C-alpha cells in the first residue's frame, strides 16, 4: 500500500513534476461556483479548497445542493490556529451518492473571527461548531445554541487550543530525582546492578 492519492485519475502534468495533479472535484467546484475565489490544491488524501470565511456558507450550500457535488455528509468541522496567518475553519465533506470527498478550508482573521453557521445545512455541524467555539473562540452566526459543550458552562473567554495559550512545560522532576539518587527511588536497592543513571536518550 502506498499513499497514492485516490483522486489522481488524470495524468500528471509534466510542467509541475513536483506538485501532484489535483483531483476532479476541484473542477466541479470551479464550475459550480464561478464567482467565488477559491484555490485548489491536492492534499495527501483529499482535494483542498481554500476560500475566504465570508463565502463559506455559500460555498458549502452549493457543495450540498449541487447535483454534481452532492456532499451530504459533513464528516468533520474543526478549527486550526495558524497564528499570524489567522484562523481556519476546516470542513471535511463526503458524498454518498458520488463517493468523492473534499476538504474546504475557510480563512478567518485572528481578531474577532466570525463565520456563518452551517448547522442549517447539516445537523451534524451543531455540536462541532460548539466545540470550535469552545476551543478557538470562533463565533458561528446563526447557530441555535452556541453554548460551551466540552468546557465548563462559564468558561466563555478562554480558548485553550489557540497557540497563544501554551501548555505548561512538562517537568521531568521525577527523572532528576531518579538520576541523583536511585537508592531513594524505593524499589531498586543499591548495588543490585539496576542502580544506574539513565543515559539521555536521543529520542
Amino acid at each position, binding site marked *: *500500500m502506498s499513499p497514492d492519492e485516490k483522486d489522481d485519475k488524470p495524468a500528471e502534468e509534466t510542467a509541475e513534476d513536483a506538485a501532484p495533479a489535483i483531483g476532479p472535484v476541484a473542477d466541479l467546484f470551479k464550475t459550480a461556483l464561478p464567482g467565488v475565489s477559491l484555490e485548489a490544491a491536492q*492534499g495527501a488524501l483529499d482535494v483542498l479548497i481554500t476560500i475566504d470565511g465570508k463565502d463559506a456558507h455559500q460555498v458549502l450550500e452549493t457543495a450540498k445542493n449541487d447535483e454534481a457535488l452532492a456532499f451530504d455528509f459533513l464528516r468533520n468541522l*474543526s478549527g486550526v490556529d495558524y497564528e499570524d496567518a489567522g484562523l481556519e475553519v476546516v470542513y471535511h465533506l463526503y458524498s454518498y451518492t458520488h463517493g468523492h470527498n473534499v476538504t474546504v478550508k475557510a480563512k478567518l482573521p485572528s481578531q474577532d473571527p466570525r463565520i456563518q453557521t452551517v448547522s442549517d445545512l447539516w445537523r451534524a455541524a451543531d455540536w462541532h461548531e460548539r466545540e470550535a467555539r469552545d476551543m478557538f473562540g470562533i463565533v458561528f452566526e446563526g447557530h441555535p445554541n452556541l453554548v460551551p459543550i466540552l468546557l465548563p458552562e462559564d468558561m466563555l473567554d478562554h480558548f*485553550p487550543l489557540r497557540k497563544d495559550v501554551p501548555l505548561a512545560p512538562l517537568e521531568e522532576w521525577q527523572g532528576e530525582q531518579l538520576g541523583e539518587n536511585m537508592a531513594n527511588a524505593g524499589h531498586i536497592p543499591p548495588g543490585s546492578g539496576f542502580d544506574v543513571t539513565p543515559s539521555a536518550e536521543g529520542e
Partner: protein
Amino acid sequence: MADMTTEHELDTIDVNVNIGPQHPATHGVFRMVLVIDGEEVVDLVPHIGYMHRGAEKLSENMDYRQAIGYQDRTEYLAQFNAEMCYVQAVEKLAGLVPPDRAQYIRVILAELNRISSHFMFLGAFGTDLGVFGTAFTYAFRERENVLDLFEEVTGDRLMYAYFRPGGVAWDVPRDFKERVEWVCENALVGAMDLDKLLTDNEIFIMRTRGIGILNAQDAIDYGATGPVLRASGVQHDLRRAEPYSIYDRFDFEIPIGTNGDSYDRYLVRLAEIRESVKIVRQALAQMPEGPILPERMPRLLRPAAGEVYMRCENPRGEYGIYLVSTGGTQPYRLRIRSSCFCNLSALKHMTVGHYVADAVTILGSIDIVLCEVDR
C-alpha cells in the same frame, strides 16, 4: 393546576429528570436531562464534557511517537483501531511505507479489537435492559480471551501503544497464529451463546424493536457512522468505500439493518463479530514473514509540511485524524474526529416520544465511549 374537564384532560406539569453524570447506565460520565410528561420523554438535553482532558492540546506538545498513547486513552475500547488511524495519518505525511508483515499484524489486532469492543457492547446492552449479569459474564468471558492475547503481544491489557509510524513496535510471539485461531473459535461460540440468549427472547425484542428509530436520511444528516448508520440501512463501511491499509485484500460482508431501531443496531454488531473473524482468518493465512519496520526509519520523525484527514472504520463508526504538520517534530494540529461524538448528537432525535426506560436502551444501543466523545 387541576383543570379537569369532563373529557378527563388533566393539566399536568412536565418533570425534569436528571440522569447522570454518576449513573450505572450512562456508560461513563454523561449527563442527560429528560423532560418527561408522565412516562413519555418530551425533550432531552445531553451534557457532555465531563471527561474532557485536552488530548488534542496535549498531543501538540508531544512528538509523534509519544502522541500514540493519547489515542489509546481516547478510545479505550478500540485502541488498535484508533492507533492505526493515527499512525497511518503520520505515515501519509512522512512518506513511510510499512512492510507487509506489519500491515497484517495491524489488521489482525484491529479486527480482534473490534470483536472485543462488540462483546463489551453486548454485555453492557444486556445489563442496561436488565439481564443483569448473564449477558455480561457471557460477553466478558470472550473479551477476556482477546485481552489475554493482547497482553501476550503488547504487554498491556488495555493501553497498548504498540503501533508505530512505519509498522509495529516489536514482532508478535511465536505461537501467535495458534493463539489467534483459538481466540477466534471461542469468539464465534460466545457470539452464538449471546445470540441464543438475547436475539429471540420476547422481552428483549419488545424492549428494543421499534425503539429509537433513526432513518437513513437523518443518520447521514447527523453525521452518524458505523453500526448506527448501517443499521439504518445505509451501505457504507470505510473498509470498503475508502479502503485503507490492506483491507482491499480481504473478502468480507457488510451487515446492513433495515429499520434503524435498537434491535437492528444490536444485530449489526453481533453480525460484525462474525465478519471480523473472517477477516482475521484470511489475514492469518496470508501473513508473510519479514521485517516489521522499514529499513530506514528516522530516529525522530519530522513529517513533511502538509495536512491529511485520515479516516478509519472504528467499531463505533468513522474515526478521523486531521493532522496538520509544519515540518516539526510535534503535530501542529491534531484533531480527532470522534465517531461517538456525532452518533451521540442524534440521541435527542431518537429518544423524544419514547418512555424513560427506553432512553436508557437507546443510549446503550448507540454504544458510546465517553473518552472519545469528550477527548
